[in-house]
């Protein structure tokens, strides 16, 4: 079984994240960039299957992004992925989700896989549409936003949370799944993992390697504005009457 795990490098949510107001792109100097936590959980889903089938399963991490996205791939290798593929091309700077999905699907096709595992949505974009677009490009089923995943040799199944309930869904392999943060708790890289990660293969692919041209994104950012930071209002220390004062505050603001 060959499992391909999608990895995205995102700004660390522990810090202030900034957009460049001129370009609408991420201000890369603004904050530390890390592998998205949801991708580590996706990787964990793949690694758990590999734990039960060490000889027969290969896990490959796939990322698209600028040169420093290789750090996120190295992290995946240190956690236990066998190899990594990095789609790296200057023409991809700032491309939209439609273009991103097209490129990722082409890279997945070229790398080969039985199963693609992605996070349900990234912490920076939060659109949650890339896995479905990749599945569509590949002509494959998607099991979206799985809270639990079961993989066997021929199929993948899981539980997807939907409005007012959940669905048990299944698809034959090959297939694409996306997982939520409930799917798995990611492991930490071991010392041995960190040491061996340096020797594992990390392949870079350009657009021409994928047989794609440098088309521009179709979507355009019209405007971008920064919301003024919230300022603190009234702050009181409870002297035994704070509950009543709060009730008055809520009543005055017609909030009750």
């Amino acid at each position: 079984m060959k499992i391909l795990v999608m990895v995205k490098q995102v700004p660390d949510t522990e810090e202030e994240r900034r957009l460049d107001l001129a370009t609408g792109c991420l201000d890369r100097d603004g904050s530390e960039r890390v592998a998205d936590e949801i991708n580590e959980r996706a990787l964990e889903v793949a690694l758990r299957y590999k734990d039960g089938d060490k000889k027969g399963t290969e896990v490959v991490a796939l990322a698209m992004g600028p040169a420093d996205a290789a750090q996120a791939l190295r992290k995946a290798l240190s956690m236990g992925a066998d190899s990594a593929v990095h789609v790296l091309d200057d023409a991809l700077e700032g491309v939209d989700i439609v273009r991103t999905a097209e490129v990722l699907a082409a890279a997945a096709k070229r790398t080969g896989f039985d199963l693609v595992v992605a996070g349900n949505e990234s912490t920076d974009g939060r659109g949650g549409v890339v896995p479905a677009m990749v599945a569509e490009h590949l002509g494959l089923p998607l099991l979206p936003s799985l809270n639990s995943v079961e993989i066997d040799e021929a199929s993948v199944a899981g539980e997807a949370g939907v409005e007012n309930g959940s669905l048990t869904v299944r698809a034959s392999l090959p297939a694409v799944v996306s997982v939520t943060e409930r799917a798995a708790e990611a492991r930490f890289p071991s010392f041995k993992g960190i040491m061996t990660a340096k020797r594992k293969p990390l392949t870079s692919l350009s657009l021409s390697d994928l047989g794609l041209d440098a088309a521009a994104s179709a979507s355009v950012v019209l405007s971008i504005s920064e919301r003024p930071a919230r300022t603190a209002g009234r702050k009181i220390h409870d002297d035994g009457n704070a509950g009543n004062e709060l009730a008055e505050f809520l009543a005055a603001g017609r909030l009750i």
Partner: protein
Amino acid sequence: MANVLALIEISAEGGIANSAPAVIAAAAKLGTPVAVLAARPGEGTRFVARLGEFGAQQVFLVESDRAGAVLAAAQTAALESAARELSPSAVVAANSVESREAAARFAVRCGAGLLADAVDVMVTADGTPATSHSVFGGAYNVQATVPGRLSVITLRQGALEDRAPAATPEVTTVSLDVEAGNAAVIEQVHPTAADSSRPPLRGAAAVVSGGRGLGSKENFVLVEQLADALGAAVGASRAAVDAGYVPQSYQVGQTGVAVSPQLYVALGISGAIQHRAGMQTSKTIVAINKDEDAPIFDVADFGIVGDVFTVVPQLIEALGDRAKNAGALSAQAN
């Protein structure tokens, strides 16, 4: 005005999903709203009147026995069929698990542009549909458009408050053979037992959230009591979820639900940046915390440094007294 397709989702309970009024309202802001619905033969007609109440001028009903049997395939085919018939200028779908899959697949299939997780929609001066996005927990507002292509828009659930005026829809019924070879099969549907009388977190007008400061699962009931006194939804910080006080579906923040209610009350929540990213666009924020340096106070309109176990019961009592007095006053007036 150009037609705008509004993809209607059927919930696990078999009714129209809660997202429908906002999806139709967004379509109405961009053109003539056409509700697109995929249902098993004979099962869609019963929804038409309700979709009219939500403002649909037309209902495009696609009948397929694949609806509800496979994931998103019938909905995607319904959008394709409606787009061929009605030449829409845009397609709006909820940014929910099922609807966004259909929207994404449809966008790839017809080479459309995709604007995901919009919080509002508008038409630019030259008539192109555009969207507004709340980025990084509301720190930025970004407007985007896809010139020269059909725009497919997914709408963040609970974000758009607009509602379209009711209409009496024309109905077009189309029977489709849906190619579902590459779709996930729905093996079982598990509707959740209709949860209490509390409003759902997404889209609630008021939210009361609890954090690690509650100390235990048993104590978390205090959050629920205040929520019920305010008619609010119940939320939680990630710390409270990780500590096992409440299920993950309660989580407000970067990796949980992003909310933007009229009133947000944070009880025993320190206010880590990941939590603030999910609630800092609330209209009014109230925080109660023992630690006077808790970062939640930086964004609170009214902050109380104190013990939630003394302040909240007093607040609930005061709210009860006010309700009683209001009741007595209106009884006098009668």
